[in-house]
């Protein structure tokens, strides 16, 4: 059996995988472009593995297959580097998110305490004052100053 049978089948399968992932919208656009370009280059090479021999000779590589191996290795290396970078970035972003969550949660806790105090206060002063005060909690999104006064 000829080598080109194996390589052409592989090339087609890789391209099909990429297209299918794109079709299901599982790949973000920025990755999609890269992978589509890679697929389009790889698939024809599978059918005609010798097409790169000329290019290989010109740049000092013994034959086309070696050139493909070398280029493939460099590509995989770069992709790994890119993924490490993305993972670091995502980790930094999730860290920030978790910090925000913690800060918001502590703020909500403080607000709940304040709200309870307000409610208790209103119950003590009687229902007469209720309609006027009803709108107040809506406007209390910036209570940092008040909290300090309450604590002090």
């Amino acid at each position, binding site marked *: 059996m000829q080598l080109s049978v194996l390589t052409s089948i592989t090339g087609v399968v890789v391209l099909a995988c990429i297209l299918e992932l794109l079709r299901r919208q599982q790949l973000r656009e920025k990755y999609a472009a890269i992978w589509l370009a890679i697929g389009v280059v790889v698939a024809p090479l599978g059918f005609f593995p010798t097409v790169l021999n000329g290019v290989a000779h010109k740049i000092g590589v013994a034959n086309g297959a070696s050139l493909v191996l070398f280029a493939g290795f460099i590509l995989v290396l770069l992709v790994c580097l890119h993924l490490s970078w993305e993972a*670091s970035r995502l980790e930094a*972003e999730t*860290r*920030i998110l*978790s*910090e925000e969550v913690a*800060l918001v*949660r502590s703020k909500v806790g403080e607000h709940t305490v304040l709200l309870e105090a307000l409610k208790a206060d209103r119950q003590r002063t009687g229902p007469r004052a209720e309609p006027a005060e009803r709108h107040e909690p809506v406007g209390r999104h910036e209570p*940092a100053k008040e909290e300090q006064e309450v604590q002090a």
Partner: protein
Amino acid sequence: MNEQQKVLIILPAWNESEGLPSVLKEIQTKIPFADALVVDDGSSDDTARVAAEAGANVVRLPYNLGVGGAMRLGYRYAHEHDYDVAIQVDADGQHDPGFVPDLLAALDTVDLAIGARFAGVGDYAVRGPRKLAMGLLSVVLSRIARTKLTDTTSGFRACNRQLIEFFAHWYPVEYLGDTVESMVGAVRCGFTVRQVPVAMRERTTGTPSASPVKAMVYLGRAGFVLMLAMIRRMPERDISGRSPRTSIAGATK
């Protein structure tokens, strides 16, 4: 120090519910003018509840981020709540809050005051190869900071308002980031550092290792952290309130 200063004690805590009440009580009796903030670093026990019952403010991280991540959250809290001084204290009772006034006094002249063992006070001693490794590290860091530093990995440190703002926007979160890298970063951005001799108590949990292999690993990692800290791009020092340029170590959007 003056009496109007708002002082925040930041205690990064991970599963510290046993020791925390006594530590918080000691803080309240020895330095009643300071507020305590417990940063619950994704604990699986009831650290947050215990801390709240003991009268501390609590922020809870949804999952464990390590000391560096907890400290950055602490500095962000201090910055948002407009504190003048933030002091990092270990939640395991290693640090004696009685030395806090000494740190506050040092802040009159510098931006970052580090409570250091091996500086003449107390009988805390580290022996063996680890001592050698820590000694080497402290020599190098003393050169960088242009001041004598004998205990570079001390987690007992106070910083002033400008540094709180700086750390709220940029704080390294990786290994030794909360001690070595954050100090180098602050120095590189023009902040001043001085150490204050303090006594430290033996940790009740965990024993420092005396194995030479572990000391070498420690030295290697510390050296690597130090190298990264020296070559990493620092945020522009910016105290006008805008966030500095983002980076992985201290990204803030």
